[in-house]
C-alpha cells in the first residue's frame, strides 16, 4: 500500500512539474483561425492573421493583425508583439495566398506550414484574386468572422464541386508527385461578400493559369469521381431560341486509359455522368425517351467541347492539373518513364475525351 502511494505521488508530482513550463491557459491564447500571405511592392511578405475572440464579454468577435516580414515565422514573432495573447497555430483552418505572390511560387511558405508539427495537414490552401490581407481583415456586415465565413464557403463549394477541396496535404502530395500538378480554389472580395473566383492551376508551386468558376464542374468530371454537383449547360440555339439545361444531383465517374503508338501516348479520358434534369428550356420533349437520348447527346457534346478546351488551356500553360501524367507513367516501364521528360511531352500529347451522359429523371413533371 505504502509503495502504491509512493509511486502514485511520484507520478503525480512528476506530471504536475513537467507540465509547468508548457502551461496553456485558454483565455491567454489567441488561436489563429486564418492567415494570409501577400507580396508587398518592395518584395517583402505581408502577413495577416485573424483570431476569433473566445471571450463572450468582448464587443468584437475577432482580432486581426498585419505585419511585413521576410518569412511567416518571423511574422508570427512580430505579430505576437502586437497581441496580448500567446499566438497558437493549432486551430489554423485557412491559408490564403494572394495571386501575385502565388505567381512567384509558394513552396517556401508551404514548407514552413508542413514542417510545423502544430499545423494540421487539413488546413485549406486558397488563392485570393486581389489582396488576401484586405479580404481577410475586411468587415463583412453579415459575416463578423471572415475566416469562418471563408471556411464554410469553401467547405460547401467543395461539396458541390464548385471548387476542388485542397488541403495542405493535397497540395503537398500533388506538388511532390510526378505526373500531376497542384490546384487551389480562388476566391475574391466582392465588397459585402466573398465569392468563388475559379480554380488556380499551378506548375510545381507557381500559379500560372485559372479556370472560370463555371468550368469547375467540367474540371471535376475530368479529375475524378464525385457524387454531388449541378451544372448549367448552354446548348446553343435552335430556331432562334437559346437552349439551356440544368443537370442536378450528379454522379460522375472517370476512367483514363493510355495507348502507345510508336512510343507516342494517346490518352483516352472517359467520363460517365449521371444526373437529373431540373430545368430545361429547349425544344426537345424530354419526357420522351428519344428526346432524352437527344438531350443526353447534346449535353455530352457540350461537356466534351468544354473539356477539350480546358485540356488545351492546360497543355498550353504546361500544367498537368488532371494528373494525366500519372496514368501515362503507370502504363510505361519505370525506366521508360524516368527517361521521358513528361512536361516537355505533355503539351503535344493527344487527349481524347469521351463523355457519356445518362439522365436518371426529369423531375416531377411528366411533360
Amino acid at each position: 500500500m505504502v509503495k502504491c502511494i509512493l509511486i502514485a505521488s511520484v507520478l503525480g508530482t512528476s506530471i504536475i512539474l513537467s507540465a509547468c513550463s508548457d502551461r496553456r491557459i485558454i483565455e491567454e491564447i489567441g488561436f489563429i483561425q486564418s492567415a494570409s500571405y501577400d507580396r508587398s511592392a518592395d518584395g517583402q511578405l505581408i502577413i495577416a492573421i485573424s483570431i476569433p475572440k473566445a471571450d463572450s464579454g468582448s464587443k468584437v468577435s475577432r482580432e486581426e493583425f498585419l505585419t511585413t516580414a521576410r518569412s511567416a515565422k518571423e511574422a508570427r514573432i512580430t505579430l505576437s508583439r502586437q497581441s496580448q495573447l500567446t499566438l497558437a497555430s493549432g486551430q489554423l483552418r485557412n491559408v490564403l495566398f494572394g495571386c501575385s505572390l502565388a505567381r512567384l511560387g509558394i513552396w517556401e511558405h508551404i514548407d514552413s506550414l508542413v514542417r510545423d508539427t502544430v499545423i494540421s495537414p487539413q488546413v485549406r490552401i486558397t488563392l485570393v484574386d486581389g489582396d488576401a490581407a484586405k479580404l481577410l481583415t475586411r468587415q463583412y456586415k453579415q459575416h463578423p468572422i471572415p475566416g469562418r465565413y471563408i471556411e464554410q464557403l469553401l467547405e460547401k463549394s467543395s461539396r458541390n464541386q464548385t471548387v476542388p477541396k485542397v488541403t495542405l496535404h493535397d497540395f503537398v502530395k500533388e506538388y511532390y508527385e510526378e505526373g500531376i500538378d497542384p490546384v487551389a480554389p480562388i476566391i475574391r472580395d466582392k465588397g459585402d461578400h466573398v465569392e468563388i473566383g475559379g480554380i488556380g492551376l499551378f506548375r510545381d508551386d507557381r500559379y500560372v493559369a485559372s479556370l472560370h468558376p463555371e468550368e469547375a464542374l467540367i474540371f471535376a468530371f475530368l479529375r475524378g469521381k464525385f457524387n454531388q454537383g449541378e451544372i448549367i449547360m448552354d446548348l446553343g440555339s435552335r430556331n432562334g431560341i437559346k437552349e439551356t439545361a440544368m443537370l442536378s444531383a450528379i454522379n460522375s465517374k472517370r476512367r483514363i486509359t493510355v495507348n502507345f503508338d510508336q512510343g507516342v501516348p494517346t490518352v483516352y479520358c472517359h467520363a460517365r455522368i449521371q444526373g437529373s434534369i431540373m430545368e430545361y428550356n429547349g425544344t426537345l420533349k424530354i419526357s420522351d425517351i428519344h428526346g432524352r437520348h437527344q438531350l443526353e447527346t447534346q449535353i455530352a457534346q457540350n461537356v466534351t467541347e468544354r473539356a477539350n478546351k480546358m485540356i488545351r488551356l492546360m497543355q498550353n500553360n504546361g500544367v498537368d492539373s488532371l494528373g494525366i501524367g500519372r496514368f501515362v507513367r503507370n502504363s510505361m516501364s519505370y525506366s521508360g518513364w524516368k527517361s521521358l521528360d513528361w512536361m516537355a511531352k505533355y503539351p503535344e500529347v493527344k487527349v481524347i475525351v469521351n463523355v457519356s451522359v445518362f439522365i436518371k429523371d426529369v423531375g416531377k413533371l411528366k411533360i
Partner: protein
Amino acid sequence: MKEKLSCFHAAILVHMTQTGIVIFALPGLLAVQFGTNGWLAVPLYFIVTLINVSLIAIVYRVGEGKSIFDILERSIPKVMLYPLYVFLIGLWSLIGCIAAKKYILLFQLIAFPTTNPMAFKFVIDLLAYALIVKGLYNIAKTATVFFWLIIWMGLFLFYFFGDLEWVTFTPFVFQGGHHDVKTYFDIYAAFLGYELSLLFIGYSDRKTRLVKAIIWGNGITAINYILICLVSFGFFSLPQLKSLFVPLLDLLASIKLPFIERIENLLYGFFLFSTILTIGMYSWSAKEVSQRIFPTVRSRFLAFVIVLLSFIVSFIPKSLYEVDKWLRLLAYLEFWVAFGLPLLLISVLIVQRGSKGELSHG
C-alpha cells in the same frame, strides 16, 4: 509451482514487444529504401523473422524446454559466459532506454515541447520498473490488457480508404529506392522483439505451444504493418512519403471526425502502452541475464539498478538525430544477437548431444 505462459498471452506479448516507436517511421523508411510499393517488403521481412523463429524453435525442441542459460552454462564455464552476459545486459537495457527516449522526443514534437524530456523519461522508467518487478507472467497479462487498449485504433485505417488513389501506388515494384545496407537493419528494428522469446523457454510448458505463439505474435505484427504501410503508400505520394520523418503521425493528424479533429496527440498517447511493453520486456530480459551473474542479489534490486543506469545513460543523446543514431547501432547489434544467440545455442546443444551419445556408447 511457477505459473506458465498461455499460448495467447505469449503471442500477444511477442506482438506488443515488437510494436514500438519504429512503426511511426516505418512507411517512410520503406519508401526511402525500396521506393515504389515498398509496403510489399513487409512480407519479405516477415519471412526473415520466420527463419529466425525456426532457429528459436530448434533451441526449444532440442533443448527440451531448458532455459538458454542452463544450456549455455552446462557446456561453457560461467566465467567465459560473463562477457556475453554483460554485453546482453548492456544491449537490452540500452534498447529499452533509447526507445523510451525516442518516444518522448517524438511526443515533444506535438506536445510539451519545452518541458525537460527527462521528466517524462523518469515517469516512463518508473512505470517500466513497476512492470518488470512483477515478473514475466504478469507482464504478459499486462500486455494483453494493453493490446486491447490499442488494437481498436486499427479501425481508423478504414477512414483513409475513401482517400486512397490506386493510381498513386503505381504498377512498379521496388523502383527508385536507395537500397542502402544500413536502412535494411533500420527497417528490421520494427520486427525485433520476438528474439526475446528465447528467454520465455523457461517460463513455458507444452501447453504454451511457444513456437506457435511466437509465429502468431509475429504474424499479427506483420499484418498490422502491412495495413499501415499499404494505407500510407496510397495516401501519400512516394516522394512525399520519403520526405516525412514520422508518416504515421501525419496519417493520424489527417483524421477528421465530424465531432473532433487533431486527435493525433491523443492517439499517440495510446502508443505509450506498446512502448512501455517494449521497454519493459527489454529491461526484464536484461534483468534475467544479470540474475545469472548475481544469483544471490534480489531481483527487484537488479531491476532497479538496470532502470537507474539506463535512465542515467539516456541523458546523453539529446536530439532526435542522436537518438536515431544510437537506435540504428543498437538495432544492428540486436539483429546479430537475434540470429547469433540461437545459432550459438544450437551449436552448444549439438556438442552436448554428441558428448551424451559418446557417453552412452562408452
